[in-house]
C-alpha cells in the first residue's frame, strides 16, 4: 500500500502542471483569465470535499 501512495505522490507531481494549466484554460474561457493560484484554490476545495466524503464512507 505504501508503494501505491508513493506512486500517486510522484504521478501527481508529474501531472500537476498540466492539470493546473487545464483549469487555468477553463477559467480563461469563462472569465478571460486565471492564475495558477485560482486553479489551486479550486482543487483545494475539491480535496476538502473529497476528505469529507471518503471519511463518511469509511465510517
Amino acid at each position, binding site marked *: 500500500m505504501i*508503494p501505491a501512495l*508513493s506512486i500517486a505522490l510522484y504521478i501527481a507531481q508529474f501531472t500537476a502542471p498540466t492539470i493546473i494549466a487545464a483549469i487555468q484554460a477553463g477559467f480563461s474561457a469563462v472569465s478571460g483569465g486565471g492564475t*495558477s493560484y*485560482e486553479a489551486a484554490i479550486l482543487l483545494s*476545495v475539491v480535496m476538502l470535499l473529497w476528505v469529507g466524503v471518503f471519511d463518511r464512507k469509511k465510517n
Partner: protein
Amino acid sequence: MFIQDHRRWRLMLAILSLSLLTVMAGAAVAPALDVIQQHFSGEPVILIQLIISMPALFIAITNLFFGKLCALFKGRTLTLTGLAFYVVFGCAAGLCSNIYLLLICRALVGVGVGIIMPMSTGLITYYFTRDKQDTLMGYSSAMNMMGGVVATLIAGFLAMVSWRLSFLVYLLGLISIVLVLLWMPNERIFQQKTSSKKKHENIFAGYYPWIVGMFLLMVNFFNYPSNFALEVSKSGVVSSSLVPVIMAGMDIFGFIGGLLFPKCKTAMGNRSKYIAPVLFILGYIALQSAGGLLLTLIGSFMVGAANGIGVPYFISTASAKAGANAATP
C-alpha cells in the same frame, strides 16, 4: 546523541544521507525556473514546468521495477548506480541548450531517485531492529525536508549567477556517494516479490480514498514549486532574489507541520483531515491576493504546512488500515 551512541552509526549516516536527496529532487531547481524560462523564451511554458515535474514520472516508473532491480544487483551497487544517475544527469541538464535534451536528463535524474528513494527507507528496515526503526524513520523524514531547504537555497543562489549553475545543486549527491562507498556493505538485501495485476487492482480498490487524497494533496502542493517563481515574476510583488529564501521558508514550515502532525491529530482527532485542504485554500487565497511580501510569506508558509501535515495524515491513516502489511506493494 542517538546516532553516535549506535554501534552502526556510520552505516546510519550513509543511509540517512540518501534521504537528503529524494522527495524534493525534482523541485530543487524550482527557484531558477523564471531564469530558465527567460533562456527558453520561445518554448511553451508547460515544457519549462516539465523541468520540475519530469523526474516524478520516472521515479514512479522506476518504483514499479524496483523489486526486479533488487533481484539483479546488490544493495550498494544499486544505490551507487542511482546516485551516479542523480549526480551525472542532474548536473548535465545545466549543459543543455535544447529543451528536449534537458528534459531527457531530468527523466534520467528521476530514474536515479527512483532507485535511491526506496533504498533510503528500505535499508533502515533491513539493517536496524524494530526499536530503532521508528526513530530512524523520523530522522529520514526530517532529512527529506531539510534536503528541500538546503537544495532550494543553493539552487536559488546559484541561479542568480546563471541558470546553468543552479543544476550543480545535484553535486550534493557526491556526499552520499562517498559515505555509501566507505560505510555500506555490498549485500543482496531484498527478496523479489511477485505481484499480479489483480493484486494491484485490489490495492486501489481497498485504498482509493487515500490514494486519490494523496494525489489531490500533491497536485495542490506541487502547483507551488511549479508556478511560484513564474507568478512572482509576472506580478512583481516580491523581488525575484527573495524567491529561493521564501521557497526554503515554505520547506521549513513543511518540516514544522510534519513535526506538529501528531499533536494536531491528538487534539483534533478525526477533524485533523480538514487541516491540509483548509490551509491550502487559505494559503492560495493569500498568494492570489498579491498583497505584497507579508501575504506572500503567509501564503507560502501555509502551503508548506499543509503539505507537512497532509502527507503524514494520508500515510498514517492508510497504514492504520493496512496494519503490518503497509510497506509491501
